[in-house]
């Protein structure tokens, strides 16, 4: 599974044509984000020119972003919501995945069908009911009101990814623990879980990114900056007046929310690749 395995025996020598292709692909992957960074340093008249490099680079847009209370609140909300969602998705996802992977479970097929069908669910289908229910329960426009549905929709991802990680742990460990008189639950918490930490970290990153990215739930279930998350804040970003579209500031805000994610993805890239592909294409 490790992408850094010895070079494939089918490897051919890469000629100039393929090199050109490789370079084009890399440029196409990177240029759009560069363009966003470029735009974020442009101010005033610079914002109407397609210069490859900002003529008078300025950090004014970034200062404006941090002066914008809505954006700062959204950053906090996104962090709270995504951390809580990830934590509970890992907790409930890990136990469910372990039961699915290793324990004698009744109606396994039905449970898997339910989990799979949640992944095909359009979030819009529950928008109106959630809005009504949350309004009645006082959860509308609250962070808790976002965490609950986000958790539900990231659980399938957590369950599927973790199930394939648990399958890779040798069964001998459980057998040994069982002979030593450990209960299945204790075996899970004390023996299996510590061994599954790499899988849990990987799953955690995938769930965090999914939760951070998701837009429709906060767009439906929040109404004020108190509970709005980053994607909503960016999508509804307005300047001094409501009709002024502050391209520079939006670009700066977009760059700001992308950088931490980018750093995380680069640090954990091998895990993310293995997590994205785990189980999906084995055998």
């Amino acid at each position, binding site marked *: 599974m490790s992408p850094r395995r010895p070079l494939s025996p*089918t490897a051919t020598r890469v000629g100039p044509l393929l090199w050109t292709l490789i370079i084009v692909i890399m440029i196409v992957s990177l240029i*759009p984000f560069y363009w*966003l960074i470029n735009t974020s340093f442009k101010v005033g008249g610079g*914002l109407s020119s397609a210069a490859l490099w900002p003529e008078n680079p300025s950090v004014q847009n970034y200062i404006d972003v941090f002066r914008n209370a809505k954006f700062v609140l959204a950053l906090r909300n996104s962090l709270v919501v995504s951390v809580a969602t990830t934590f509970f998705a890992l907790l409930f996802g890990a136990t*469910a995945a372990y039961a699915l992977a290793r324990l004698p479970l009744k109606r396994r097929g039905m449970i898997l069908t339910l989990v799979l069908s949640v992944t095909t669910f359009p979030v819009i289908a529950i928008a109106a009911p959630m809005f009504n229910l949350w309004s009645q329960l006082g959860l509308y426009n609250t962070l808790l009101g976002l965490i609950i549905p986000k958790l539900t929709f990231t659980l399938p991802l957590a369950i*599927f990814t973790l199930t394939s990680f648990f399958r890779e742990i040798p069964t001998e460990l459980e057998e040994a623990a069982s002979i030593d008189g450990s209960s299945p639950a204790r075996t899970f918490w004390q023996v299996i879980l510590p061994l599954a930490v790499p899988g849990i970290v990987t799953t955690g990153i995938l769930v965090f990114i999914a939760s951070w990215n998701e837009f429709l739930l906060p767009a439906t279930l929040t109404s004020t900056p108190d509970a709005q998350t980053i994607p909503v804040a960016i999508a509804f970003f307005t300047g001094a007046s409501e009709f002024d579209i502050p391209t520079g500031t939006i670009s700066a805000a*977009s760059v700001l929310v992308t950088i931490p994610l980018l750093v995380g*993805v680069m640090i954990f*890239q091998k895990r993310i690749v293995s997590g994205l592909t785990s189980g999906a294409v084995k055998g």
Partner: protein
Amino acid sequence: MESMTISRERELTSAAPVRHSRSVDAAARRTAFWFVAPALTLMGLVAAFPIGYAIWLSMHQYSVRVSGLSRFVGFKNYIDALASEAWWQAFGQTFTFATISVSLEVLLGVGMALLLNLAFRGRALMRSALLVPYAILTVVSAITWQAMFDPHLGLITEVLRTLGMPGGDTIWLAESGYAMAVMIMADVWKTAPFVALLVLAGLQVISSDVYEASALDGATKLQTFFFITLPLLRPAILLAAILRLLDALRVFDLPFVLTRGANGTGSMSLLAYQQLRESRLVGEGSALSILTFLTVMVVAVIYLRFAGGNLRGTTKEKI
């Protein structure tokens, strides 16, 4: 609590080996139940129950403006929706978007995976570059492509202008066709790398024996690709395609940020959202969201029926 009771029970029964193993089984079954219970309860409460409620809402005339006004209207909202131009427009535009972008993503994804599977210096660098679009929020990817096509500060419009090609003076997001192209571009850019990574993982598990055998039989590179590599990649490609297709049919963020659904870039989810949130038509909006739900389900079922045999191998592994 649970584990304590179970272990006490085990201590008590440990003297009798037969009963011991039976109680271990019972304990494991009970643990399994409690382990899946929280996840299943959540999915039942937050996914299954609201769908039922949404169906109920969709059968009522319901207004938020005049609170409490709600009367049963049967299938009227569905009939109205299915008779409306807006629904069929959103439906057609969603499928246009989904078909074109998913086809491009699969083609480009397979191509990039084949490249990444070659031995070359800088392969790791290329893989990192492909992860950049993955790390970017969909909303931000929309803003990025908005900037790329901006009539004044856009890179693409500038290049087209310099080369004297058509499109340089077009306000892309303001014209239908062009606006759809921007939306597809943003989606393909963000998700083709995801397809590439899935397919690459599929490529890397193909045993080298297969290639050696085909080389011994004197197969050309092209033959090897079409008769060996591609069939073996089928499950990975089909899986990537269904995951992308389901996402594309539910598309919401991209048209919302780029155009608010104007200029031929509507989507089923966006139309339902606009009815629900902007027009406050809860009954009509719910009917539209149930129709979106049914459309996605039907596509998923048809896809699984035709490609299911190939996918089953992988899903079984996965599960």
